[in-house]
Structure formats: structure tokens, C-alpha cells
């Protein structure tokens, strides 16, 4: 059953479908929560909240905005950031998360290269100058404002804005130029 069909099946209340859905996505949902929170217990709480939210709002999934997996990840990310802000009002240190995006020669192929477009995105991010990749991860994943990025990196606001904008532009250009034409 494809992801969208599985999501649609949640509304039937069928236990097998529900279990299949959770099992298909729990590793990713948990991973996103853990990457942001850094704490397994807090991450588990957020992962559970994310699934609960999906149960309540599954019918609001819009395929035009991305895959079910990505949609789940954004729900998880938003909950994780809410949790983080409640627990720690200071700006986040994104070092651990950024390390996940860095070059990792001994990563097993199967777990990182899930599909063509994902490997393109990974390659694109790694092709960015490190300071731009950092700014983009801070802004794009942690939803840090340009001001917060500037403070975290010790750079002027204008520089932070430029890094965020340039990183995204370069990322999109790289993705467009290496686009796989077959779907």
C-alpha cells in the first residue's frame, strides 16, 4: 500500500492499517525529533504527539506540498521546536544536527540514499560553502530567524540574510540542474 493510501486508511480505524502506518514512519519521525531535541525521552514524547496529530488531521494532508513522509517530518519538527522553546528559551545550538548533514564516508548506502531526489538534495547541500549550509539548516530546520542566525554565528544581520538566501538559491539551482526527468 503506498503512503497516501495508508494515510487515507487511518480514518477507517483499522488496527492493522494504523500499526502499519506507525511502523512505516516511526523511524523517521523519531529521528527528526531526536535530531532537534537531542534527548531520547523528549524525542519519544514528540514522536507520539506527532502521530496523534496525524490521526486528528490526516485529512488535511495536501499532496501538492510534498510526500506523506515529508509532511510527517514537518509536523514532528514543529512539535519538537515548540518543545525545545519551552524547555530552553535560548537560541539552539544546531551543531549536532549539522553534523548529520556533513560528509560521512562510511554511511551505509541503503539508509541514506533512499531515492534519487534525496541523494541529489544531499549532494546539493554538501556542495554549499559550509557557512551557507549552516545558515540554511539553522533557518530551514530550526526556523531560526536571520537575527538569531547572526547572533549564533557572530555575523552582521545582513550577512546572515545573504547566507540564507544564497544557500537556498544555490540549493535550488543545483537541484534543477541535476533533476532526474523520470518520476
Amino acid at each position, binding site marked *: 500500500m503506498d503512503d497516501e493510501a495508508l494515510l487515507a486508511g487511518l480514518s477507517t480505524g483499522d488496527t492493522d492499517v494504523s500499526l502499519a502506518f*506507525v511502523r512505516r514512519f516511526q523511524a523517521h519521525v523519531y529521528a527528526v525529533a531526536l535530531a532537534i531535541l537531542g534527548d531520547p525521552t523528549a524525542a519519544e514524547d514528540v514522536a507520539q504527539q506527532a502521530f496523534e496529530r496525524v490521526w486528528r488531521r490526516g485529512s488535511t494532508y495536501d499532496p501538492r506540498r510534498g510526500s506523506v513522509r515529508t509532511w510527517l517530518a514537518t509536523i514532528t519538527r514543529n512539535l519538537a521546536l515548540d518543545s525545545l522553546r519551552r524547555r530552553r528559551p535560548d537560541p539552539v545550538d544546531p551543531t549536532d544536527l549539522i553534523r548529520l548533514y556533513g560528509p560521512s564516508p562510511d554511511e551505509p548506502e541503503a539508509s541514506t540514499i533512499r531515492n534519487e531526489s534525496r541523494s541529489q538534495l544531499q549532494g546539493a547541500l554538501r556542495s554549499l560553502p559550509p557557512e551557507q549550509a549552516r545558515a540554511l539548516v539553522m533557518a530551514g530546520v530550526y526556523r531560526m530567524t536571520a537575527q538569531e542566525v547572526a547572533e549564533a554565528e557572530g555575523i552582521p544581520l545582513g550577512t546572515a540574510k545573504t547566507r540564507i538566501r544564497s544557500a537556498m538559491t544555490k540549493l535550488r539551482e543545483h537541484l534543477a540542474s541535476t533533476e532526474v526527468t523520470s518520476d
Partner: protein
Amino acid sequence: MTCTQVEQSATEYALGILPTEEARAVSAHILRCPDCRREVDDIRRVGDQLLDLIPDAEPPLGLDQRVLSAVRPQPTARPARPARRPVRRPGQMRLLVTGAAAAALIVIGAVTATTLSSPHHPAHPAELTAILREGNHNVGTIYVGGHPTWISMAVDHLSVTGKVSCQLVYRDGTVTDIGTFDLVDGSGTWGAPDPAGAAQPSGARLVGPAGEVLATASFSAE
């Protein structure tokens, strides 16, 4: 705001991190400019895809069972509730985000019920509008919709001047802070990207500087 100006702020806007005033200006522009709207949508999509790169992690044993136990009490979608107020056609529901408080704000309606109960994916993200009330008085309107999802709020006749915060309230009781804006002589308009993305709020509220609830709005017909 011109397309060139919007391009400068597009990434920050799409990622939901642009300061409120600038975000309002971008929002007003993209309501009328499909090219810029497409650009913002694309950036947002790429931004979300950054999350795809996080490698899977082995979850704690039994997480799936715990999730199932937590969600089992409500395994089915909520039954449809009829809207209490007349519903305008989608074309009439768009709010223009402008500096002036009065214009184009008299939209009344609640579409939450039918959208939430649909077993199929909606053709468009839901658009919700509701009246903000302070006690028995109507003090403004709030609109959630658009693509990317945008929250617009317009307040008139509120007996408060100063900083107020907008919050979205969800059925599970959670509350999300959307942002803070200034009321002058009890009036103001304001907008922000919806940080919850695909989430559907059940209501909204306006809170004052001390956290006191000033006005509330309900999107559902409860």
C-alpha cells in the same frame, strides 16, 4: 512591494522566519502575484525536504504500541457538523492584507466541519474564517488560508492599546503562539505564516501583554 523586492525576502518568508511587518508585505504581494507565490511554494517545499535528509533512527521498543494505545480512543474521523453560519464561496473568502483596518474584513463563515470529516484529501488547503469576540461584542476577524498557509487578523473596537499576541487553539487543547502585533486605539491588522503548516486550528485568541485573554474566535460550529 515589487517582485524584485519580494525575491529578496522570499526565502525567509517561505521558511516562516521573516519579521512580521515584512511578512505582511510579502503576503499582500503574493496574494495577487502567481509567479511569486509559486516561487515561495517551491522554496518552502525545498526547505521541508531538508528534513528528509535526517537519517532514520531506531525508535525505542514499543513506541508503535504506545502510539496505537494513545490514538485508539479516536480511531475514526469526526462526524460532519453542519456550519451554523452561511458559508461564502471560496472566492469571497480571501482577505486582503492591507494597512487600513476596515476594508474587506466582513467575512463570516466556518468551513472546518466539512473539511475535517472528508475521507479524501481536500482539493485545496482549508480556508477558515471566524469572528473575534470580546464578550458579546464583535471586535474583529481572523482568517487562516492561502498557499502557503497564512493567518490574517484584523481588529477593530477592542478596548486595548498596545502589544497583543495571536494564538491558535487546537482541538487537543494545545495552543500555539503565532506572533505579537500592535493595536493603536483598539485597531490593527496583522498577518503571519502559519507555523503549524498543515494543522487545522479549532479557534484563535488574542491575548494581552500579561497573558490575559482579550478576544476569542471559534472556527468550528461547536
